[in-house]
């Protein structure tokens, strides 16, 4: 392996990728502002204990956080590099925004989780939290908002809908306690072939129908009715989650959104309490979210329904193609000589051009394909990408020529 000075799992974002990253961020911000959400940012350091309470972060994730004693941590109280943004957002709400009001928040920030080898240990997320709004309005709004962000970026994604209550009801009916439920559910998610027969053995009354629930991915409303008829007789606890899903899936389908239903999908089982969704492009997860009505009361004193989602900004940026670069190429103003007067007139021209909305540099060599302007007293010589110089005598004319050069 090549030697690098970078820490393992940490990445630089280079200019090309940064431009794509900003496009993702701008599309996300514009969509969120359009739906009435407000931007916030939470600190990188949080108390570890925010994340260790049951129902917040899963034990698997907790085993991958970056935690340490701060300079004033003599009490043994650890801090952590934020491994997730929803819990800090819930803290922010409980501490600063509570009062029974609905809070519609969004943020673009990074999270830190240990990953093996070269896998990224710092990920950027475009996140949305809708706190104080109960389902189904919130759930529908979030799916539509996420789709709008993707639409602005020209990305087509599959929407997969799920509800942890379905599997939870089945596993509870099978007589498993909380930790056994988690273990079996993890095996199902990991594609362990022996998990389903084992569950079928525990639940002979629904037997083969489990294959339909856990093995098949269904299409919206129709599939939900099939599940209902197969299960409600023996697992009545599935009724409420099925009803919740049906309302959300029905509304989204009516709005022209194709919905796939997948009972076994949600990884963070302890955390979600209601409909959850996931967005995928060519089988790759690009974001997801869901309802977590129990979280706010675990952190603050008050109960508040809440749901949210996050898009993986880095993954989305990777799906975009390079474009717009040429129009952002700066023009370069070249001074006739290195004396104060010549440099001052070069910088004066650059300032005047920037006021007219152009990107103009004086220091640095001209980028490939970028225009050049040579200043000699009151005469300006503009050289475009084609390499032909034109002599011009006003700032306005130079600006016009540069706009033309950028447009071709």
């Amino acid at each position, binding site marked *: 392996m090549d030697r690098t000075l970078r820490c393992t799992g940490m990445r630089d974002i280079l200019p090309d990728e940064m431009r794509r990253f900003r496009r993702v961020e701008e599309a996300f911000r514009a969509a969120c502002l359009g739906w009435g959400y407000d931007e916030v940012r939470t600190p990188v350091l949080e108390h570890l*204990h925010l994340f*260790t*309470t*049951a129902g917040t972060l899963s*034990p698997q994730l*907790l*085993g991958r956080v970056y935690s340490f*004693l701060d*300079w*004033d*941590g*003599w*009490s*043994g*109280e*650890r801090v952590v590099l934020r491994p997730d943004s929803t819990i800090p957002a819930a803290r922010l709400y409980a501490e600063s925004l509570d009062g029974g009001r609905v809070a519609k928040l969004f943020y673009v920030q990074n999270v830190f989780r240990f990953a*093996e080898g070269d896998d990224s240990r710092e990920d950027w997320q475009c996140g949305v939290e809708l706190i104080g709004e109960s389902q189904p309005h919130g759930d529908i709004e979030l799916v539509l908002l996420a789709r709008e962000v993707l639409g602005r970026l020209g990305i087509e994604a599959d929407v997969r809908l799920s509800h942890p209550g379905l599997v939870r009801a089945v596993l509870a009916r099978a007589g498993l*306690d*909380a*930790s056994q439920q988690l273990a079996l559910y993890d095996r199902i998610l990991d594609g362990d072939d022996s998990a389903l027969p084992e569950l079928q053995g525990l639940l002979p009354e629904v037997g083969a129908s489990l294959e339909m629930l856990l093995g098949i991915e269904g299409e919206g409303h129709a599939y939900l009715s099939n599940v209902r008829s197969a299960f409600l007789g023996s697992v009545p606890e599935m009724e409420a989650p099925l009803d919740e899903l049906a309302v959300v899936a029905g509304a989204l389908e009516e709005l022209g959104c194709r919905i796939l239903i997948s009972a076994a999908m949600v990884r963070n089982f302890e955390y979600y309490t209601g409909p959850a969704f996931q967005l995928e492009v060519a089988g790759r997860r690009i974001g997801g979210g869901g309802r977590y009505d129990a979280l706010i009361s675990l952190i603050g004193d008050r109960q508040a329904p809440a749901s949210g989602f996050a898009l993986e900004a880095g993954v989305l940026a990777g799906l975009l193609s390079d474009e717009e670069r040429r129009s952002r190429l700066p023009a370069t103003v070249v001074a006739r000589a290195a004396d104060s007067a010549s440099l001052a007139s070069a910088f004066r021209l650059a300032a005047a051009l920037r006021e007219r909305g152009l990107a103009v540099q004086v220091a640095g060599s001209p980028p490939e394909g970028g225009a050049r302007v040579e200043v000699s007293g009151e005469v300006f010589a503009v050289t475009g990408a084609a390499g032909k110089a034109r002599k011009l005598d006003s700032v306005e004319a130079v600006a016009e020529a540069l706009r033309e050069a950028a447009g071709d």
Partner: protein
Amino acid sequence: MIKLALPAGDLRTPVAGVLGAAGLNVEGYGEGSRTYILSVGGREEVVARVFREKDIPIQIALGNYDLGVCGMAWVEELRARFPHHPVVPLRDLGVGRSGLYVASAADGRTLASLGRRGLRIASEYPNVAEAFALAARLPAYRVLAVWGAAEAYPPEDADLAVIAAADEAAVSGHGLSPLLCLMESSAWLIANAESLAKKDLRSVLEPLAAGAAGAATPRLRLPPPLATASASAGPAPRSADTVRMALPDGHQQRHAVAALGRAGLLPPQGYDESQCLRRPVSPLPGLEFKVIRPHDMPQLVATGEIDLAVTGRDCLTEHLSRFPSSPVEEVADLQRGQFDLAAVASEAVPASDLGGALEHWHAEGRQVIRVASEFPGIADAYARSRHLGRYRVIPIAGASEGFVPADAELLIEGTETGRTLTENKLKPIDLLFRSTTCLIAGKDRGLDGRRRGVFEQVVRAMQQAANARQAV
């Protein structure tokens, strides 16, 4: 060359016995030789080095040593934090049997009643304690990583302790009730995975393989999530009208005994040249004693659990290096137990100061300067302020002299007479500061009426005794 890491301390005699029975005679090991690098009788290809037990899995994981012997509890302590470490347990040596217990004060508490907020867990095994708390999903717990005497912390200074003990009866013997046994431990032969894969270790493995194969590798058994209990079981109330004073065990004890004796504060029994009870009775009404490790005192003073403590300036400086705004201060220099905290290098380094030594190491092509110390906070602050460039602090539990030159360039180390340094071919190249036994207290004492009187009386008596000593 096969490098073997062997434990100092209580395991020395039984491990020497097992090795001897297998025909591996490590010269001077069983007898407690002061040198740290030892040869193995009749086997030129093997060299042994003595470490504190706790450091052995780390040295094996780093690949500095091929084979080692230590209790499996210390391997699990490493694994709890670094699950992918390359340490392979090979064989149970059948000695040093103990269990790792979660224990609370003997007040009828059960595991199920623990799930309240803010539990404090004291342990020499902080990673195991952390893994236990996470698995049990304790809300808002705090782990107090201590150097020793964790069994003395509940109930006043912690709610739980994670401790090693021979059995449940031994836990009860400390006045605690065992809630859960996290694992059974014994001394094992362990190996570095890469050494095992690539190096011929036969001359140590073969003689030891003759014994019994041993049972399954002991592993941590963590509990399932505990139900969140009602907030009723609050922290143990501390006695409101006494001043709590910590006294040191270990090498500081004789200095503390002498200082207390001079000040007329020596407990009538349980704390003298030969005895060390955890809670000796004080001769002064309103004053309460507790004996713990001097390293751990500044933290307890900072959090207000302890009002006064007799410790070393080295321990206070270490604490303040890690936590610069901690509200702890020295209130009296007891003028005893003096030694220098110095930067120490190998005698072979042709330089008499740090600058010359750095030049030498850089000329040798060393890219990273390794600094081993029992005082990682002081070592880190020193390395930063003296511009060591790219450096690495290796926090160790003790037996530091053996780290130079193979496993570190520099030690930050206490030297009393310089004899141990000479015996291990080391020399001081820089003096950090002079340490003595001192009395420390919180800056913001908030003591009222009677407690304030007792506090001031103790400080005055200790100061006068120290001044009288200085005047002699």
